[in-house]
């Protein structure tokens, strides 16, 4: 366990080494967040309502996506494909570490740093913009929110890892990821809550994993969902975590069998 703690700590230290780069990345995040924040402030003026969303609820949702982005979507596993392509994977296969745990530990170090920055940024936004904000106080919703976020975190880890495994069969690892990020940006709900989409599209999205990465946990936090909706959402979420986990394991085994590590 200690070695994985050290891997997470190393990732944290790595990020501190390239401070300027990381700070620029966070500044970019703030700009993206503010763009969507101001858009929704203009679309739903105070006292108005859009499909059940008042301005405080919508702005809470949008600011919540920033925190969820740090908890769920910040990840290091995008490098897995490169490791496979470059032959570096061989170094890991020879070491007494579990490759999945190694990347999960790196992810945790990365997430922790991002969460610290996201909290600081949100605090600054609160101080300067004083947005109307919805504070959830019901422990029932808060507990389910935490549980759902944990499932999202695992789901994203496995999805990202799966994309990296393309590296076993193709050097073209960035193009599929580019498409994935584009789709994710839209269907995870980082620009808007998915339930403002036309009903048919929303009903289809409810069965896809993207919905459970950001939109679903924040909807629980907002107290918008009934107990039945929460439980059915968590079941679909858990299904996807296990399904993607087994697919990753299967593809990993197939990939390792065909892996040649040329150049090493």
């Amino acid at each position: 366990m200690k070695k994985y703690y050290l891997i997470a700590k190393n990732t944290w230290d790595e990020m501190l080494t390239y401070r300027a780069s990381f700070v620029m990345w966070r500044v970019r995040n703030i700009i993206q967040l503010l763009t969507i924040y101001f858009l929704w402030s203009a679309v739903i003026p105070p006292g108005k309502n859009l499909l059940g969303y008042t301005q405080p609820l919508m702005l809470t949702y949008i600011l919540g996506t920033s925190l969820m982005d740090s908890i769920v979507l910040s990840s290091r596993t995008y490098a897995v494909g490169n490791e496979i392509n470059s032959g570096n994977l061989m170094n890991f296969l020879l070491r007494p570490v579990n490759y999945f745990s190694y990347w999960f530990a790196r992810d945790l170090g990365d997430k922790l740093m991002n969460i610290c920055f996201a909290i600081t940024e949100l605090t600054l936004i609160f101080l300067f913009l004083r947005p109307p904000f919805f504070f959830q106080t019901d422990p029932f919703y808060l507990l389910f929110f935490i549980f759902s976020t944990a499932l999202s975190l695992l789901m994203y880890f496995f999805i990202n890892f799966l994309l990296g495994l393309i590296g076993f069969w193709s050097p073209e690892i960035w193009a599929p990821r580019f498409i994935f990020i584009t789709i994710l940006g839209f269907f995870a709900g980082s620009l808007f809550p998915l339930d403002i989409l036309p009903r048919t599209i929303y009903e289809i999205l409810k069965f896809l994993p993207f919905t459970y990465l950001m939109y679903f946990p924040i909807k629980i936090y907002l107290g918008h969902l009934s107990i039945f909706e929460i439980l059915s959402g968590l079941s679909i979420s858990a299904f996807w975590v296990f399904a993607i986990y087994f697919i990753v394991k299967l593809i990993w085994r197939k990939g390792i069998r065909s892996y040649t590590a040329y150049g090493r």
Partner: protein
Amino acid sequence: MGGNTRILKYIKLWFMMTGMVSQNTFVSRFGAVLFLLGKLIRFVFFLFFLLIIVSRTQAIVGYTLWQVILFYITFNLIDSLAQFFLREVYRFRNYVVSGDFDYFLTKPVPVLLRLLFGGSDILDVPIILLSVGFIFAALSNIGGVTIPNLLIYLVLVINGLVISMSFHILVLAIGVLTAEVDNTLWLFRDITQMGRFPIDIYKNPLRQIITFIIPVGVMVTFPAKAAMGLLSFNIVLISLLVGGLTLYFSTRVWQFSLKRYTSASS
């Protein structure tokens, strides 16, 4: 060598370098197709997003659906044209750290020209064509767009491209001084993305800052406003002045950075 001959030589050079970069892009046809598909998906999704918002609210800060689309597509056209022509800037860091930049400095081609226009990204062409098509659709659906307003629109789009090029020159200058390119470039792109929506959605002082200090408003929002007849002649003149000043400032910074270049790698 006469001015015209020199320009022809540079255009020929641009074609050659774009041809070579394109061959590189299509080494992996699968990857090229996926990248193109990703760009198209992003374009369509964002239009859909705007459609959803406006269909639920009827208007964004008073602008109708086609007006909002014109703002977005104008942003997209300027952004895509800049990416198409100035793609070489994205490769600049490699040139600095590998020492290739020193090699460019010895060549009989103005180095700034080489670094800005040294190979266009062919994958942006479909998006540019799509944007032009949507601009025609938006302008005809908005209605009441006069020929003079259309001409001012074109002039301000060119002005927007000049501002975008000036920012890219600043990125190059910062790259020469610090070897940092990628983050500055992406920061610039994120700031310009604020212009995907009419800048009227932002509150002051942010609106003033992104209109005149970091002239995103002048660059991508003002052309669409001009087409709708919402821009006074004075503001058009100020916009052109901002474009000219940005270009002047960026070339001065570029010259300053070249004087301080110490050949970091080779």
